């Protein structure tokens, strides 16, 4: 693997992560030299794999990530080279791949709901109380996630787990920022309602 992209003159490309060339420059170079796309894999596979694992489980995470990068590689000729950061684009493709596995995700959430409910608490009284509270929170979260519309769940989890901004989610999903905002508000309202049953203080508005 010859990742020669770092030889690109700084005058042509914007800077990318850790001072390397911007993702857009790497993707541009990969049009001529496909192997350069490995740089994109190395930059983003940990974050994408972690996010996929949380959503569909460890067993399916590898497949989802492999499918995402294959789709990204094939779609790279249509990448908008004006966007230096490829992370939103990759999360958008990943989201589509996860959507293909909606059943897997639902099965995982069902399983998580069961483990939350069944795990016995043991130890000191304080610890037991904390565990019970944490389990109740988890159960509420899983219940809320299961009840969300897929589009709302995507926006919520891209925010909480993907650490994407409104604008980045809009770019990833190809929807207006206003749509992201309204989906996120709706999803958060439902999660807070679910959490409200276990912790009344959870119902607080985020400032600004």
């Amino acid at each position, binding site marked *: *693997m010859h990742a*020669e992209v770092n*030889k*690109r*003159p*700084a*005058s*042509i*490309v*914007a800077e990318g992560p850790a001072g390397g060339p911007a993702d857009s420059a790497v993707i*541009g170079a*990969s*049009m*001529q030299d*496909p*192997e350069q*796309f*490995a740089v994109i*894999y*190395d930059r983003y*596979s*940990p974050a994408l*794999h*972690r996010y996929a*694992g*949380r959503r569909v*489980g*460890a067993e399916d*995470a*590898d497949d989802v*990530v*492999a499918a995402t*990068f*294959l789709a990204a*590689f*094939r*779609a790279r*000729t*249509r990448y*908008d*080279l*004006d966007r230096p950061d490829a992370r939103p684009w990759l999360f958008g493709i990943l989201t589509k791949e996860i959507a293909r596995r909606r059943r897997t995700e639902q099965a995982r959430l069902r399983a998580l709901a069961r483990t939350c409910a069944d795990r016995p608490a043991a130890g000191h009284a304080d610890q037991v109380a904390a565990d019970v509270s944490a389990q109740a*929170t*988890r159960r509420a*979260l899983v219940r809320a996630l299961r009840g969300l519309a897929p589009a709302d769940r995507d926006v*919520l*989890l891209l*925010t*909480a*787990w993907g650490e994407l901004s409104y604008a980045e989610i809009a770019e990833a999903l190809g929807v207006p920022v206003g749509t992201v905002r309204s989906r996120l508000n709706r999803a*958060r309202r439902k*999660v*807070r309602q679910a*959490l409200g049953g276990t*912790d009344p*203080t*959870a119902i*607080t508005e*985020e400032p600004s």
Partner: protein
Amino acid sequence: MTDLTDLRNFGRDLDEDIPVPSPALRHRVISTFAEPPGPARPRRTRTRRAVIASGVAVAAGLATAPWWGGAPAIDAQAAQILDKAAVAARRQTPLAVRPSQFVFISELMMYAGINDHNGKPVARFYQGQLESWYSASGARKGLTRWQPRSAPLPGHPTGRWYTTPGGAPNAPAYLPGLPTTADAMLVYLYQHSTGSNPPDQQAFITAGDLIRDNYLRPAALAAVFLAVARIPGVSVVHGAVTVDGRRGVAVQRTFGGDSQQLIFDPATHAFIGEREVTTRPFAQLKAGAVLDSTAILRIAIVNEAGQQPGS
């Protein structure tokens, strides 16, 4: 706030059961990152080049002239060429297309890949024949194959075909709903333009992309030519040569050192190809060098990806 914090904590709890991506996964994924150079040609090469070029200008601290104000109205000769092209387009017999079918496009093309050599951009030219099968509806997997004729990459000798299954974009290549009047098409071109070029230049580029990679019905194709005639700053180029050596007459629009040209047969007025010419020295090339050129050899409708059209 608490809900998002709870979710983040929940996510971190879940991470305990998820291993980090393995070297085996890396190998599995990266081994798919290889293909012959041809099919990797971006659909919007021109947009890309313009971006790189403008990046150079900005980085070098050059003041670029504002794109607005000063684009002259189209010249009469260019308008006349486009009018004739529209008439010729309307005379075409429309092809019947079913959504399950494929648009087959055969092109001869050359393009300059801009590589970096010791920090300096250097153009390397590729030439070959590209055959593409684009799903008419966008719903089926397309195919491209590429036969290099010169400057192959190592391991890719000239003369043989390299196939990339699924290498054609998954976008509909038959666009029956396109506008058929010049006014509506003009609006369409501006609205469907993406890229960093000024709107007029981008609309011209979008017109080229539209007719290069899709099958347009005669009325829509004619509307494209009439719409292009209304884009400010379009002018005529005589003696433009397509990559297969046909001499034509072209209409062009120039921005940022790039002249984008649509080439027509001087006798039949049919659209025969296009090219991009640099108007200033670039990547050790002189002004006037052709950076990218496509000659359309054949457009046909077939049932399956990979199927050659009957003669």
